[in-house]
């Protein structure tokens, strides 16, 4: 295995992806919305209506949601007033699945560009005539999608931490974020879900002809995360440290199985058959 080859392919693919507006635009806009605008708007909104009758935190559904929550969450908000606990639950808890949507989106868009886009433009043939082995080509492209997806998510998490603590400071009077359940989510689940995005996109890329086709088909994976979001919002599922570790583990097992299939589809003969 030649790592210079793998890194060269990854760097080239990342460079090409950053020059395709259909790729870099979502990479810029999505974190901006999830990491800055939405938390900022919510914290400011909740802080503004503090103590007023119109406070949405007085909503009976929300009150019931708080009553039903498990022990570890009640512990977190014990001793807080209604606004403080509202901020913790919304920003520190309900928002968490967005940090799974981001790595999933980033990894699928770059993988679609890297795998299907290269075939669509027929540049892959010249690549297949180089001494790089099938495995090196695959790993180079995998790295090109996985690394930026994880790094942008981590960067987004740091930015989110700063935005949330700074904006909520007048209400919370302390640095309260991140909550413990975020560490497995960011360090364990988000890389696993990035890999899932890459593996599914590689498999779909073998069947579709274009970058857009691959991206749109694999984009349906976001439904998985939306289900998680709905689960949290309705109180069916609670994302604790343990749940995070378990979800990550299950995802990694699925990743492993899908990757085995993906590597099998990625060989020179199969790739040439799709460009002729």
């Amino acid at each position: 295995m030649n790592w210079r080859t793998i890194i060269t392919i990854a760097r080239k693919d990342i460079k090409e992806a950053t020059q395709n507006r259909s790729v870099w635009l979502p990479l810029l806009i999505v974190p901006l919305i999830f990491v800055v605008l939405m938390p900022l708007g919510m914290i400011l909104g909740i802080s503004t209506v503090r103590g007023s009758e119109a406070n949405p935190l007085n909503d009976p559904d929300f009150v019931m949601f708080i009553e039903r929550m498990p022990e570890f969450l009640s512990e977190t908000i014990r001793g807080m007033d209604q606004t403080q606990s509202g901020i913790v639950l919304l920003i520190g808890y309900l928002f968490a699945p967005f940090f799974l949507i981001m790595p999933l989106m980033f990894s699928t868009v770059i993988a679609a560009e890297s795998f299907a886009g290269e075939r669509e433009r027929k540049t892959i043939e010249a690549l297949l005539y180089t001494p790089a082995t099938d495995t090196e080509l695959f790993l180079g492209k995998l790295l090109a999608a996985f690394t930026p997806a994880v790094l942008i998510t981590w960067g987004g998490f740091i930015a989110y931490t700063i935005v949330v603590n700074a904006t909520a400071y007048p209400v919370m009077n302390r640095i309260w974020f991140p909550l413990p359940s975020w560490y497995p989510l960011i360090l364990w689940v988000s890389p696993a879900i990035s890999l899932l995005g890459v593996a599914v996109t590689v498999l779909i890329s073998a069947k579709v002809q274009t970058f857009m086709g691959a991206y749109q088909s694999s984009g349906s994976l976001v439904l998985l995360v939306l289900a998680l979001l709905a689960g949290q919002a309705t109180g069916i599922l609670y994302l604790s440290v343990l749940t995070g570790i378990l979800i990550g583990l299950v995802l990694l097992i699925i990743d492993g199985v899908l990757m085995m299939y993906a590597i099998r589809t990625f060989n020179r003969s199969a790739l040439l058959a799709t460009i002729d």
Partner: protein
Amino acid sequence: MNESIVIEHLSHRFDERYALRDINYEVRQGEVFALLGPNGAGKTTTIRLLNGLYKPTEGRIHVFGKDPLREGSAIRKETGVLTETTALYERLTARENLLFFGRLYGLPESLLLKRTDEILQFFALNGRADDRVSAYSKGMKQRLALARAFLNHPRILYLDEPTASLDPESTLQVHELIELLSREDGRTVFLCTHHLVEAEKLADRVAILNNGNLLALGTIEELGRRFCPGMWVDIMLLNPIEDKLTPENLRGVLAFEHEGNTLRFQVQEESVIPMLVSELVARKAEITRVNPQKVSLEDIYFKLQNEVRESAS
């Protein structure tokens, strides 16, 4: 002369369709070898098999004595391929394209930087080296793709339709570059083309394919002697000759045609021409010009392809 490529009983099938059928030939180190045939004859498939991109259905291939399937990576390190489409990264600059491929060929960084500069200059692209390839003309892209194929100084340079869709000026430039590259260091050039003039101009030996079958192999002279025996000679006269001429009353003449003051003879070989001229002079012919016509690759190619078509029908 050593063989760069040895192909023995090679067949390759896509589902039920044979792309190549029981092919045998060798390509010698240092020669320009042209593989000719219509679209779909099996030319590109041959290049892919020789580089280990496909697994042959039957038969054996050796490139530098190695099996492309087992040692594909090692073989590809010593070959360069100009693909039918330029397959360049259009969002990257010419220099970035070359640096990327140079790294995949394992060239050390300092050598790669030096060679990239040299090669851009050699292919007259140094003035636009840092422009994105998308801004290049077709001819420039083809030169850059050729530069990429030559970057690792390959022992075998495969050229798949190197001048397809190029204008005459760019075609001439590419031909000159191929001639220049083929003269260096005993490099083998494996040229796939359906441009017969191009093959005639550049190739030492040719192989003619049709529908996956090898129809002929050899130098153009050898193929001419074998498939188009005899040669045509045009003789121009000042006035029409009065004697009635037939192939039977002229020694060494296989066929005869005439149009006005021009007589066309098909003769067995070149040595017949002086005898033919003496014979005509003896018959009071006033000869103004004698123009022997060599058998062209086009004559050979179409004769073989037509034979295949006729036998199929």
